């Protein structure tokens, strides 16, 4: 070693995990805890993928997380808390009392929507009197969908379909529809209530006109049953806690190491080759990466990729991307007059304009402003606060932006975003900006390599939502012993789904590894 010779990695593992994102880390922890010899290879110099943070001056900025809706409290744990408890993950969590503060400037709505079914319904009833009973019926339906999904997840093997149909008929009945089809055909909600309800859309990035009802219902039920949390020390704390735990459990995590090739022979995974030239044999490979990246760029030789795998990638629609303006302010949020953690801002949620997203990189009508100090007062030094202003774009809108125009474009846009935040919230920001960073789809692509700089995996429209993805998981395994976890995998986008996807895949792999060993020794 030394003098230009590249130090090497050990050449054999039971499982190689590509990517230390949320799914890769939980998969790694559960595999290592189960005794599998596991190596995680991460292209970046720190864990987490999108779940990270960065430092500018005296501020540490959150990169991605708005809220974890499937953590739950110790008394009422969600899937993520159960998984974290099992693999020994302890993080300081902060409870979020509200879902969001909705500001619709043209519709003249300005209201805080709390978590908890009853509190949420009460708040809605104040804004649109007379909708209580119908909302209760709606949330009952959402809870039934959530219960059905929980039942399926805990009975993956030997699923009793007749029982499912008997016990959760409405889950089955609504599974093939969009949010709007179910909500507007089966419930009598005044238009104004729909405007408020659909503001949730901001979290999933797929309009309710095409978003599948199942995943929507699950999210609503989760938010109100498990409530929402964030880590007190940004996402990097969760990611590093997972990474350190993985190492403590005997796993090996190597940073700054890109996987250049997934080695495949006869339709079956044999190992990986890294950008440093390490060749590592493994019985199983877990990709915390998109099928787009895996089939188009990693599987080697290329003739091992069946044509259907390309069709599989090309059929799918990429989720949205983001532009975020990160502000380190030399004034407290109290002084600014920002009391709430998250503001959903739009001119209007009126049907005709609700989902209009710009087809060019111009200012969209919807904006999310979050201020972590409202719930974590010491997230930055006394007398300062951290703001995040984010807008969404459809995948591909930033495709044509070249390096020559890039800086000027993002500055113009950030200028308009700050302006909109100031006007909608009645605050004055410009005189207090100590640090500013502007992240675009290009930034997101730079740090993760995600296709077109998107953040939300594949869109969960009806044909590509949880149920069809899960029902087809076996027939869509185009390379044997190659599994997917993370935001592009079977459970859909978002932190919680990614964490759980890693846990589910690891559980299956541990059983397979055990069977393989028994076959060898038996």
């Amino acid at each position, binding site marked *: *070693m*030394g003098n*230009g010779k*590249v*130090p*090497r*990695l*050990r050449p054999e593992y039971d499982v190689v995990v590509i990517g230390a994102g949320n799914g890769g880390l939980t998969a790694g922890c559960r595999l290592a805890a189960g005794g599998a010899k596991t190596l995680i290879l991460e292209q970046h110099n720190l864990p987490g993928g999108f779940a990270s*943070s960065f*430092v500018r001056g005296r501020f*540490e900025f959150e990169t991605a997380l708005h809220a974890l809706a499937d953590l739950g409290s110790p008394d009422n744990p969600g899937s993520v808390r159960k998984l974290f408890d099992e693999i020994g993950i302890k993080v300081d969590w902060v409870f979020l009392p509200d879902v969001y503060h909705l500001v619709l400037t043209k519709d003249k709505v300005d209201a805080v929507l709390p978590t908890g079914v009853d509190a949420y319904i009460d708040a809605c009833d104040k804004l649109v009197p007379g909708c209580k009973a119908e909302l209760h*019926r709606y949330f009952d*339906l959402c*809870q039934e969908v959530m219960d059905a999904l929980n039942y399926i997840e805990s009975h993956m093997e030997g699923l009793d379909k007749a029982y499912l149909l008997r016990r*959760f008929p*409405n889950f089955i*009945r*609504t599974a093939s*529809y969009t949010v709007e*089809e179910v909500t507007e*055909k089966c419930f009598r909600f005044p238009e104004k209530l729909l405007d408020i309800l659909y503001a949730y859309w901001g979290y999933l990035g797929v309009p309710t006109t095409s978003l599948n009802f199942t995943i929507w219902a699950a999210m609503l039920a989760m938010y109100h049953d498990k409530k929402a949390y964030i880590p007190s020390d*940004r996402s*990097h*704390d969760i990611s590093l806690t997972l990474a350190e735990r993985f190492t403590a459990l005997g796993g090996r995590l*190597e*940073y*700054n*190491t890109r996987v250049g090739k997934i080695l495949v022979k006869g339709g079956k995974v044999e190992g990986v080759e890294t950008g440093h030239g390490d060749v590592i044999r493994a019985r199983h490979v877990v990709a915390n990466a998109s099928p*787009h990246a895996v*089939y*188009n760029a990693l599987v080697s030789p*290329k003739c091992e990729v069946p044509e259907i795998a*390309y*069709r*599989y990638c*090309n*059929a799918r629609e990429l989720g949205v991307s983001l532009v975020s303006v990160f502000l380190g302010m*030399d004034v407290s949020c109290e002084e600014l007059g920002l009391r709430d953690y998250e503001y959903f801002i739009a001119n209007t949620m009126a049907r005709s304009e609700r989902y209009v997203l710009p087809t060019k990189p111009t200012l969209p009508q919807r904006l999310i402003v979050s201020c972590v100090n409202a719930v974590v007062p010491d997230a930055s030094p006394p007398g300062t606060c951290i703001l995040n202003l984010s807008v969404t774009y459809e995948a591909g809108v930033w*495709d*044509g*932006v070249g*390096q020559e125009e*890039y*800086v000027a474009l993002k*500055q113009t846009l950030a*200028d308009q975003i700050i302006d909109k935040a100031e006007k909608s919230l009645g605050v004055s920001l*410009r005189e207090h900006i*100590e*640090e*500013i960073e502007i992240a675009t789809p*290009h930034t997101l*692509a730079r740090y993760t390599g995600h*296709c*077109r*700089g998107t953040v939300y995996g594949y869109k969960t429209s*009806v044909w*590509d939502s949880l*149920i*069809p993805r899960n*029902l087809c998981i076996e027939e869509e395994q185009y390379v044997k012993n190659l599994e997917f976890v993370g935001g592009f995998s079977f459970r859909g986008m978002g932190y919680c789904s990614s964490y759980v996807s890693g846990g589910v895949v690891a559980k299956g792999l541990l059983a397979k590894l055990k069977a393989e060993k028994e076959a060898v020794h038996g």
Partner: protein
Amino acid sequence: MGKAIVVKGRIADLLGFVRLVPLRRGKIRAASPVSLPDDPVNATVRLMHPRTMRLRVVSVKQETESTKTFTLAPDPSRGTERLATFRAGQYLNVKVPVDGRAVTRNYSLSSTPTEAAAGVYRITIRRKKGGYATERIFGEWREGTILESSGPVGTFFYEGLRDRRRLVALAGGCGITPIYSMARDLVERNADVQVTILYGVRDSRDVIFRDGLAELERSHGDRVKVHLIASEPEAGWTGPTGFITAELIGRLAGAVHEASFFICGPQAMYTFLDGELAKLKIPRRLMRRELFGEIDEAAKLPGFPAGNASRTYVLKVHIADETLEVPASGGETILVALERAGLEPPSRCRSGECGWCRARLIKGDLFVSPMHDGRRIADRKFQWVHPCSSYPLSDLEMRVNRSL
């Protein structure tokens, strides 16, 4: 269980569920079978943020007795077709081979983004007597020399959404390089910004970019003012002398409370200016400083344990799946110890800020300069450190990443 929901019809709803899988199969079969390995966003990102740029020295200019400007062009024969654009004020992390080992050094780009678009970068380097890297650079770099560097990086640049329309730049010695780039860039972009440069030099022979600065002032006098301040003026010097004091700043730069301050220079200058700017009551928000690479002298850092600089420790390093022991001087950063051992560890800012060199401490004690501690909260909790701003206080054991 809630009351039965019927969306489109009792049968239709059930059929819809049953048909989810055939619907999905149909969508997939109908899609294009063409492999699309790349997309335009990632392609642009590779241009803007290349992992490595392969460059060639196309000309060398002697600026002062101790300073040279190297003009660099992309080297297509080794895979770099175009130069990445940058924000005036950013730097390149350049690989310098020293006795068969690669160390890296940071050099601010003294040229402008317009020039980069036209195919050249310029970096301006001052020779340090006995300097580990600069002695090689001055001895060996000439026209035709090939180099490797990072893409342009750093956060020391003018940002109109944050900074005032008046910019006061305080530069010392070679610290003029990013300031020169910034001033020329603002003029080239016709930005509505007034720039006042206070440039501290030893004497008139020490002035880098003398002609360029004079030309800026001559042709854009309405927007750019340059003041040279000599610390050891020769006879006949007519300008201000001494250090850049609060009084001098107030006198030369005018309305300081309407300005953003950009500061770049040697460590001693920052220490001195801390006191001077405090007198002017400039809010932190309006002051930016380029830490500008390597910390000069550890022993002068506030809180540095006396006597540590003369000790030598053993550093046990785990890198990939290999382990070795290397000596580490108490007066040098861990990054330098790793480089001296020929390990080519990752490095970028070399001043504790960016975290590119992030490594895990396993055993032992470190001194981290509080002024250069850019670590994340969780990193501190889990003993991740930035080797470029950490000094050994005992024998150490660490896990270090390979370079990407």
